[in-house]
């Protein structure tokens, strides 16, 4: 494929590439609700390094769809395009229960230092300040899938009306919709969960893995042009820092071309801040 005319990439494209690279050749991959960026990443992996990966396109449960564009509502039949056969939603959950689902992608309105995700409520069960939509299958599937990739397009600090900093990446989530590696009640290993939990966190600022001994999020790479300080200022806890933190490996021109072809409506960009999207990284 010629990649003429691809002379820059943007953060959404960098993130999609990082997320795609968590899919290995032959992996089984699922994703369902509220997910234009993971859909992009999954299609990219299947068109590049993981042509034999198997993907069920959302709740429509079509096998290996080849959508001509990506929709804003994941239940749209564009996610059935060229999918065959079309199953029923529980077939994918059965596969996960059998331990045969390799990877899934989850995000969170809040994400904490152990990789726990909150998509249920802000506040507490007794005092719900904001009712969030819910985690869909992210509570049970996170216990079952071999691994999952966490992603966030809102790795940032915003100011509340009272001038208080509000983070997406928090010390402790208000509600554990999706369990990461550790909660106040124990760890994934202690409980004996089937799935291995999150192994990579991809954000608009960088990527993190988890330190095995402490289960804490550890800064792995920073996106081009960012400093450690900028990332720490946007993070509500102190991540583990190693002495040398690499720059996030860029996408190839071919990967960027495939992303733009796969998602011509640019639904993958929905929800990013305009400043983040305005950044262009030259090849």
């Amino acid at each position, binding site marked *: 494929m010629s990649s003429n005319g691809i002379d820059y990439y943007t953060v959404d494209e960098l993130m999609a590439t990082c997320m795609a690279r968590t899919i290995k050749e032959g992996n089984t991959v699922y994703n*369902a*609700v*509220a*997910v*234009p960026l993971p859909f992009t990443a999954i299609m990219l992996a299947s068109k590049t390094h993981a042509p034999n990966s198997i993907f069920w396109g959302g*709740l*429509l*449960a*079509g096998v290996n769809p080849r959508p*001509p*564009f990506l*929709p*804003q*509502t*994941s*239940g*749209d*039949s*564009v996610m*059935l395009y060229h999918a065959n056969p*079309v199953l*029923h*939603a*529980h077939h994918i*959950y059965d596969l*996960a*229960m059998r331990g045969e689902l390799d990877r899934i992608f989850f995000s969170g309105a809040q994400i904490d230092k152990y990789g726990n995700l909150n998509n*249920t*409520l802000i506040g507490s*069960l007794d005092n*719900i*300040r*904001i*009712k*969030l*939509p*819910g*985690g*869909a*299958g*992210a*509570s*049970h*599937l996170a*216990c*079952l899938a071999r691994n999952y990739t966490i992603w966030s397009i809102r790795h940032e600090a915003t100011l509340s009306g009272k001038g208080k900093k509000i983070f997406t990446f928090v010390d402790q989530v208000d509600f*554990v*919709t*999706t*369990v990461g590696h550790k*909660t106040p*009640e124990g760890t*994934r290993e202690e*409980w*004996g*969960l*089937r799935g291995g939990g999150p192994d990579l966190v991809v954000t608009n600022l960088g990527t993190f893995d988890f330190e095995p001994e402490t289960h804490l999020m550890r800064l792995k790479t920073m996106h081009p042009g960012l400093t450690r300080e900028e990332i720490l200022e946007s993070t509500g806890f102190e991540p583990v820092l190693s002495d040398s933190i690499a720059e996030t490996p860029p996408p190839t021109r071919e990967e960027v071309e495939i992303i733009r072809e796969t998602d011509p*409506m640019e639904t993958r960009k*929905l*929800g990013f801040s305009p400043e983040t999207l305005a950044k262009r990284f030259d090849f």
Partner: protein
Amino acid sequence: MGIHSSKNKLCSLFEAVSQIEDGSLIAVGGNLSAREPMAIIREMICQGKHDMHNIGGAHGIDVDLMCAGGVLKKVQNSYVGFEADFGLAPNYRRLVEQGRIESQDTDCVAILTQLRASVFGVPFMPMPLVKGTDILKLNQEFKTMMCPYTDEEISILPALKPDWAIIHAHKSDKKGNIRLFPPYFSDLLVVEASRNAIVSVEEIVSEKEMDRIGANIPYYEVTAVVEVPFGAHPTSCYPDYSYDREHISEYMKLAKQGEATFEAKYLDKYVRNLKDHQIYIDLVGGKEGLSKLTKWNEDHGTWKRLLMPSAA
């Protein structure tokens, strides 16, 4: 499921919905903005149905509208929202935050596992261990046990047997044999697990035609069938029509303005006091206006414009 052996299931929307008792456990077909039984839901609101307990996976305008219309007391869903498309579900969110609707957030896998316990006629279903999530605090009936065969800890979930399934499908004959085209989501399971099912369909066909195309929901699982063309509007019913993003956009705008505005400008206009479904169809553009939704498959450009009006 219940066995409904009658060979004539045809009735009006009013007759079908009037059978649903207040306080019922209901399960809605479709998912998100796709193939929701919206005409049935509007009729439930018109008839003043209340105190219903809804169970399901990932849903959107169907649950949000039932919340606004006073139908629901409790929502036991895994997701209620509009994704990257429009964000949070305004009516659901408002009523839960005000404590007027109880939300028992659950999980897609859990709900379908519980429905399958009902299908299999067992009181609970085992599944591999689930722990660490606060969803278990909201669902204290989810327990664990030691497997008597393998000595490993497993999760167990009690059966859920809805009183009523409500779904929208493509074709039915008068007996109630249903032909549903993909995507199926979980509709076959929802119907099989429930005591009763109301199915609205785009078209009633002859039994001969149903023999030709083949049914995939057996008539004896179906309590009542109603012919309601565009019965899923404003959600999609592929391959017949895409969703009506402009209408949902108007819905969202009004819902975000609060209860009084939504009552006056949406519920009173599009739901209440309508003599029949035809009036609704005329209000939302008539057969001619809606024909744009049926032309989604003319080419990819047309389809894209329906899904994102600003798209080229």
